[in-house]
């Protein structure tokens, strides 16, 4: 009963919520226009008659498929390594935690080209770790598809780490205590209680990381190069097309917009219950 009346009250409060003053509304409208106009421009300029032709080109399909594969792999790797990192940053108090957090999220604020150069210095044939990767295991990352994934993961993972860490900090650790008194090991409690309670943030983090990965350009072209079939992802192909065939660039851009938008909507409906915000 109490819960019910609470909801009723909330609805009433929402109805009575005052409208923001008009300067706020005007500025907000400008912001909406700022975001909407580029997409309208794309739609307006798109050579609709050539869409089928362009998408039928083998190079385009290869680039699209490569982008989908690498960005999903990068999002997966961000999840596998980012969640444990977020867990440690959120729950373990160790000296220098702030430094570690800054280090692990530096690539987010770094110009991506700089990230690519740094990756080269680390994982290139003569890099600090890359030389051993090659000498001992014969693994070569630069200018390979694996290199694309590395570059994308490098710039994408911080988005997931920060999102999930914030949610883990807000999580009521007493609920985990309750689960432990019921016989749950730390790992079991994390899997069955902690993670589900931060699921919206987890989904948001994966989406953000994936979005950053599929749009990755600077670090990819610097570290992995621009080879058709192995490292030329959609953003690279789009940029290249702009110099030779503007229509093709428009179609490729439109395709990226549609794919990104589709994934966002799909995730929202399936995992966020259509209501939770993606942030």
């Amino acid at each position, binding site marked *: 009963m109490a819960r019910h009346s609470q909801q009723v009250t909330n609805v009433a409060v929402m109805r009575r919520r005052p409208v923001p003053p008009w300067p706020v509304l005007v500025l907000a409208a400008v912001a909406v226009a700022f975001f909407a106009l580029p997409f309208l421009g794309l739609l307006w300029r798109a050579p609709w008659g050539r869409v089928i032709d362009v998408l039928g080109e083998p190079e385009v399909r290869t680039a699209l498929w490569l982008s989908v594969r690498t960005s999903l792999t990068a999002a997966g790797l961000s999840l596998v390594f980012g969640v444990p990192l977020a867990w440690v940053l959120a729950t373990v108090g160790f000296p220098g935690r702030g430094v570690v957090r800054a280090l692990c999220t530096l690539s987010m604020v770094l110009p991506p080209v700089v990230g690519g150069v740094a990756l080269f210095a680390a994982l290139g044939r003569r890099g600090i770790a890359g030389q051993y990767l090659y000498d001992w295991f014969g693994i070569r990352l630069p200018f390979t598809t694996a290199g694309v994934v590395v570059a994308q993961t490098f710039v994408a993972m911080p988005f997931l780490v920060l999102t999930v860490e914030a949610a883990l900090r807000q999580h009521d650790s007493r609920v985990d205590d309750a689960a432990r008194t019921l*016989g749950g090991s730390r790992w079991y409690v994390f899997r069955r209680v902690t993670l589900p309670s931060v699921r919206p943030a987890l989904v948001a983090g994966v989406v953000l990381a994936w979005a950053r990965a599929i749009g990755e350009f600077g670090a990819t072209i610097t570290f992995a190069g621009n080879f058709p079939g192995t490292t030329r992802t959609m953003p690279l192909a789009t940029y290249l097309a702009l110099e030779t065939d503007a229509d093709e660039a428009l179609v490729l851009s439109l395709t990226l917009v549609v794919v990104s938008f589709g994934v966002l909507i799909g995730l929202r409906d399936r995992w966020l219950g259509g209501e939770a915000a993606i942030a």
Partner: protein
Amino acid sequence: MTLEARVCVQRGTLAVDVELDAYAGEIVAILGPNGAGKTTVLRALAGLLSVEAGHIRLDDRVLDDPSTGVFVPAEQRSVGVVFQDYLLFRHMSALENVAFGLRARGVDKRTALARAATWLGRVGLADHAANRPSALSGGQAQRVALARALVTDPAMLLLDEPLAALDAATRREVRRDLRRHLAAFPGVKVLVTHDAVDAYTIADRIAVMDAGHVVQSGTIAEVTAHPRSRYVAELVGVNLIAGRSTGGVVHVAGGGTVVVADAPDGEVFAAIRPQSVSLSLAAPVDGSPRNSWPMVVRDVDRLGDRVRILLAGAIPLTAEITVAALDALVLRSGDRVHASVKATEVEVYPA
């Protein structure tokens, strides 16, 4: 089954040092104000924090003893806990909540859910198995929390303020249910509460805690009859009246009756807070209080801006009034006075 514990923990500026023993079947209440260290003791017993000195033994099994380096973490102890606010898992149904402890201990899903369903039935919530905690009332959530803690058959059950989250109207009913469910559990039971009435109505023995220490412990009759400090007297100073209830009236053994709001028939205790007793020089003619007894003032005891007045009569009572009210009434030992109490202010529970 017995619990034998000495918990010494430093929490910020509060030094907790508490000795606590409990036998199987009995309910021991740790009673004290917020910040006394009650929850700290409970967390140590649960294995959520380790004692810095002392020991915790349950059935001769050492759970925690810094001197020998033994510490059994919470997940390996056979201890069920009902937490304050219940802390149910919000993403699980009531049934899955109850099954959690079994699943965590490796019981297969089908068996776990079946046993959980049995327990939900036992606490009267079979119809709510599929509900999420957000769809449960406070009393229902408490029963789910209780079933969840008991489903794994723990040797000891700990309850942290199990009634604090409830509003006054449901509290009485939930308290009665809780007593019944606790009576069916044979292990060691420790209850933490800041409310003397909760302690009286549920526990067999109480340990009164203040500033990290137990200031007095014993059976409820002992502690209420002989509070050894002003602090204990104030905390436990609830009028407790034994009698036989029929149709909303409690007949006290020494003569006299107490009209109550709703009560089970049979042998009961009626608890009246001293603050609920109002005094007047003349008998109230047509006021709302259903109870009014002529009394004789035995003692007047000032505690700061409040005054406790011991009253003798068919039903001996302690009343607590303000200094201003005392000044208006000008009461002295031996004076005649009328004590009245509203029926709704009387807490009744089965003896």
